[in-house]
C-alpha cells in the first residue's frame, strides 16, 4: 500500500557527511562548537549527530519545520533543557570558547549569565520596567543604585527602547505593547552583559512593525554579541542572519552563509523548504 503522506523523494535520502563542514565560517572565530550532538527526551531521540560551528559576533539562524529540533538545540546552549525531566545530550559535546559546558565543573548559573536567552513568548516579570532590567544585576549581587541606573539606561538604549520608556521606568512592564515587551526582554538579557544571546522565535507573536524593530535591533547587536536565532520565518532568516542552519527531522541538513543557503543551496531539501515546497 502506498502512503498518502509520502514525503518528497529528496527528503528520504540519507544525509551526506561532506556538506556538514561549512567552509564559510572558517575565517571567523568559532564561539560555540557543537560536536556530533545526539539529544533525547527520555527514550525519544530528537537530535541526531548535529555538528555545527557558530561564529563569533555574527547572527546564526536555525531554520526548519516545526519539531525539527532547532529550539531543542538552542536550549542546549544555555542548558535550559536541564529543567526538563529525562532530557539530556546522549552523545557529543557543546563547547563555548573551547570549554565543554556539560562537564560537572561548569557552573550552570554562571553559564546562563554568559549566555542570555530571549523566549518565544515575551516574559516580562510583573514588576516595573526598571526592576525588570535590574533583576539580573541584583541577583548577581550588584546593589549600587548608580551602577544599576547606568546599566538600565545602557541596555534599554541597546534594545532601542529607551526613548519609548524613559519617562515611565517605574511603570509596570505589563503595560507595554507586545513588541515593547519583547524588546524589554532583550534589554533584560543584555543588562547582565552576556557573550552570547539566544533568541527562540523572538518575533513569532509580533506584528510586522514590531518585528522590523526587533530585526533592526538584532542587526545592531551582532557588533557586540554572538547571536543565535531560531525562526520559522524564512524572510526573517534571510534578512537578519549571516549564517543559516537548516534542520529537518532532528538532523542538520545544511549549514552555510545565509546568502548561499538562500540563493544556491547545495541540498535539494534545503531548496524545497526555502522555496516553500514543504514545511
Amino acid at each position, binding site marked *: 500500500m502506498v502512503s498518502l503522506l509520502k514525503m518528497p523523494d529528496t527528503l528520504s535520502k540519507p544525509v551526506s557527511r561532506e556538506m556538514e563542514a561549512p567552509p564559510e565560517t572558517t575565517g571567523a572565530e568559532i564561539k560555540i562548537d557543537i560536536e556530533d550532538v545526539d539529544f533525547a527526551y527520555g527514550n525519544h531521540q530528537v537530535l541526531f549527530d548535529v555538528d555545527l560551528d557558530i561564529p563569533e559576533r555574527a547572527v546564526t539562524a536555525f531554520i526548519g519545520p516545526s519539531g525539527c529540533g532547532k529550539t531543542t538545540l538552542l536550549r542546549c546552549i544555555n542548558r535550559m533543557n536541564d529543567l526538563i525531566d529525562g532530557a539530556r545530550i546522549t552523545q557529543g559535546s557543546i563547547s563555548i570558547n573551547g570549554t565543554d559546558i556539560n562537564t560537572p565543573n561548569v557552573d550552570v548559573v554562571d553559564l*546562563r549569565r554568559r549566555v542570555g536567552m530571549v*523566549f518565544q513568548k515575551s516574559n516580562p516579570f510583573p514588576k516595573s520596567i526598571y526592576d525588570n532590567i535590574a533583576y539580573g544585576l541584583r541577583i548577581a549581587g550588584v546593589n549600587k543604585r548608580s551602577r544599576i541606573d547606568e546599566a538600565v539606561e545602557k541596555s534599554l538604549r541597546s534594545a532601542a527602547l529607551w526613548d519609548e520608556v524613559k519617562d515611565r521606568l517605574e511603570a509596570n512592564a505589563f503595560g507595554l505593547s507586545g513588541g515593547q515587551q519583547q524588546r524589554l526582554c532583550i534589554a533584560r538579557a543584555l543588562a547582565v552583559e552576556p557573550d552570547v544571546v539566544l533568541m527562540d522565535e523572538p518575533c513569532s507573536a509580533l506584528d510586522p512593525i514590531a518585528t522590523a524593530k526587533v530585526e533592526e535591533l538584532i542587526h545592531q547587536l551582532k557588533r557586540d554579541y554572538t547571536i543565535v536565532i531560531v525562526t520559522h520565518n524564512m524572510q526573517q532568516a534571510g534578512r537578519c542572519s549571516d549564517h543559516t542552519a537548516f534542520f529537518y527531522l532532528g538532523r542538520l541538513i545544511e549549514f552555510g552563509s545565509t546568502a548561499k543557503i538562500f540563493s544556491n543551496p547545495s541540498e535539494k531539501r534545503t531548496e524545497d523548504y526555502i522555496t516553500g515546497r514543504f514545511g
Partner: protein
Amino acid sequence: MIAAPSNRGRSNFFERVIFWGFRLATYLILAAATYIFLDIGIKGSRTVFTSAAPFINFKFLSEPPQTLYVFDYHGKKMTLSDREFRQWKTTHPESVEATSIAYSAGGIWPCIVGTALLVIGSMTLALIIGISSAIYLSEYSRNGPFIRLVRIAILNLAGVPSIVFGLFGFGLFVIFFGWNVSLLAGWFTLGLMVLPAIITASEESLRAVPQGLREGSLALGATKWQTIRKNVLPYAMPGILTSSILGIARVAGETAPIMFTAAYAMRDEMPWQVPHWTDFFFQGVMALPYHIYVVSSKIPQNEYTERVQYGAAFVFLVLVMLIALTSILLRERTRSRLSW
C-alpha cells in the same frame, strides 16, 4: 404530519419528576441554610444586641462567663450573675434559695481570645510547614514513586476525622511530649489538621505562576532559590494567603481537635496573666466552639441557658462569615492585580 410517539405523555411526566427532584434537592439546601441563619440570627441577636443605645451588648463580648443565680425575692424573680449576686447579698443579708446555672451569665470574652490565639498559632505553623512543602513538591521534586506516596499521604491526612486528630494530639503532644493541655499542643494539632488544605492551596498558587517567569529568571543566571524567592513566591503569595483564610475558618471552628489538647471549659485568668512568659505556651485556653459545646451539652438545660448558647453561636457565625468575606474580597483584588 408526524404521529407523536405513544409514550410521549409518560416520558413527559418522567422528565418532570426528574426536574422536580433536582429542583427540590437544591431548595432543601436553601431551606436548611435559611433555617440555621434565621434561628441563630434571631435568638442570638437577643443576646448580642440591645434595644437601647449603643445597641450592642458589649458586656457579652467583653466579660468572662459567670454563674447565673435565679431566685424569688418577695415574689419578684431575680436573675443575677455571680458578681452581682455577691454584691446583692451584702445589702440583703437574709438567706435566699437560689438556683445556680453554670456559665449562663456574663459573656464570652475569654473564648474569643482563646480562639484567636489558637488560630494565630496554628495558622503560623501550618503556613510555614505547608508553604515549605508545597515549594518542595512543586518546584524541586521530580515525579516518582516517593512523591506519589507523599501526595497520597497528604490526601489521606485531609480525610482523617478531626476527632482522630484530637486523639493523636492528645497522645503525642499532651501525653508523650508532656505539654499537657496547652496552647502549644492545640497549635500543633490544629496546624497538622489544616496542613493538607494549605499544601494543596499553595501548590495550586505556585503552579499558577507562569513557567516563563521561572525560565526568564534562570536564563539571567539566577539560582533556583533566587528564582523561587524573587520571581515565583511573591506572585504566588496572595493566592496562598487568601486560600489559607478559609483554613482559618476551619481551624477556628473545629471542636474535636482541641477538646483534649487545648481547651478548658472554664478558666478565670486571661491567657496573658501568666507568672512567666514561657508558661504562656503551656496553658490551656477557653475557645468558642468548645464553649458552645459545653454550654449546650455539659450543663442542665433550661430557659436560662439559651442566652449564652445562641449568643455564642451567633458571634461565632459572624466571625467565620467575616473571615470568609475577607478571603473573597482579597481574592478578587489580587485576581485583578495579578493576571497574565
